[in-house]
């Protein structure tokens, strides 16, 4: 099962590499959102300090969701989804492969987005690059678990561009709140120590929805 998931993951990553434009588009979308925030919010260093965690995660959500839908879009283009479903592999390994693909994709984006965030919105962020990336890894795990499930679910649905965020964002609120709080702790220099309860909640969310998404993916993949 892990082997099958790995084969799918590798294939997805190769496709992502050959379609760099997807990644570039997503990154630039993130930059544009940051820019909009910089323009729309007051130019005040003190104020930015308070707003930074929220701005960072909203940027993450909005550009991350673009990455989610592309994963199943690639499968649809030439009917390869059908071939994948006809292969003698568990639906769970399809889920794991796709989920990890999305996770890595989003995480690579975060690697570039953190410096840009530091440049465009909140300069001190760069000092906490490592911690922010670790936090991103945890946040992106819950995000891509639920995200992969729901983007698989909405692939064939009309008006999916709007339906996916409508379904996904409310479900992600605990994750978002936890990520915002922990990031606030990190930015004032407390690291993860300041918000241990939130960290537990975040990890709990990751685990619960990783398992549930894995289990329910079967029902989403039937035709």
């Amino acid at each position, binding site marked *: 099962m892990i082997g099958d998931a790995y084969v799918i993951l590798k294939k997805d990553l190769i496709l992502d590499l050959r379609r760099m434009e997807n990644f570039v588009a997503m990154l630039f979308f993130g930059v544009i959102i940051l820019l909009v925030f910089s323009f729309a919010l007051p130019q005040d260093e003190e104020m930015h300090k308070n707003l930074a965690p929220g701005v960072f995660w909203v940027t993450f959500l909005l550009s991350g969701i673009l990455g989610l839908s592309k994963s199943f879009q690639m499968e649809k283009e030439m009917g390869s989804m059908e071939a994948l479903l006809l292969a003698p592999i568990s639906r769970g390994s399809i889920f794991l492969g796709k989920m990890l693909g999305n996770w890595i994709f989003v995480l690579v984006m975060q690697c570039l987005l953190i410096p840009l965030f530091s440049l465009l919105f909140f300069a001190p962020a760069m000092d906490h690059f490592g911690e922010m990336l670790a936090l991103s890894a945890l946040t992106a795990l819950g995000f891509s678990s639920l995200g992969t499930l729901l983007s698989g679910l909405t692939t064939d*649905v009309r*008006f999916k561009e709007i339906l996916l965020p409508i379904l996904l964002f409310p479900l992600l*609120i605990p994750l978002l709140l936890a990520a915002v709080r922990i990031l606030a702790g990190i930015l004032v220099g407390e690291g993860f120590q300041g918000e241990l309860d939130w960290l537990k*909640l975040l990890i709990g969310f990751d685990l619960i929805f990783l398992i549930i998404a894995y289990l329910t993916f079967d029902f989403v993949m039937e035709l």
Partner: protein
Amino acid sequence: MRYSSILGWLSLLGLALTAYLVFAWAPIEQAMGFVQKIMYIHVPSVLVCYAAFFISFLASIGYLWKREEKFDVTAYAAAEVGVIFCGLTLVTGAIWGRPTWNTYWTWDARLTTTLILFLIFVGYLLLRRFVEYSDQQARFAAVIAIIGFLDIPLIHQAVTWWRTLHQTSTLFSKKAGVIDDPLKWMLYLSIFVFYLLFAYLLAKRVELENRERALKRLLANAD
């Protein structure tokens, strides 16, 4: 159906009786005054709403397990009735909040949880609209109902830590005398009557959905 019309008459009588007692018999609460009477709608509504989503959750699991249409119909009907009572909770909460907290909306933990729940299940109903009637629609909807329901404890925990101002759930706290006796009995009665009403609405909605599907099936296959 005999069964549902008995429920209907019972809940009508019950509602009339409750309305009469609320204004004629139940004393005015000392701290909050007359406006407190909205509690007899607000609290029962929120309890019904949670019960409805719980039924929808159970029926969804039942559907994915057994693949029988009756589970799908129940899940759908319960979610729809649940959304109505959820909306009622939010509206009465706002009306109640204006004189007590001096604002229509506060980001209080339980109110916020209810709002997010409302959004999730409105998403559920939208999904049902966007996907054509099929076993796919039933499966997708069931997945959303299951994840949505399981998300409730996480949402609640997150929102509680995030901000709280609501009076703690006075109704079920063990300490005697927090709510005056007549008020308590009044509330119990109204909760009971609201459950009756819920049972009636659910039974009616299931009946209606069954008929609608039977009719559409008949029309589609008549040629």
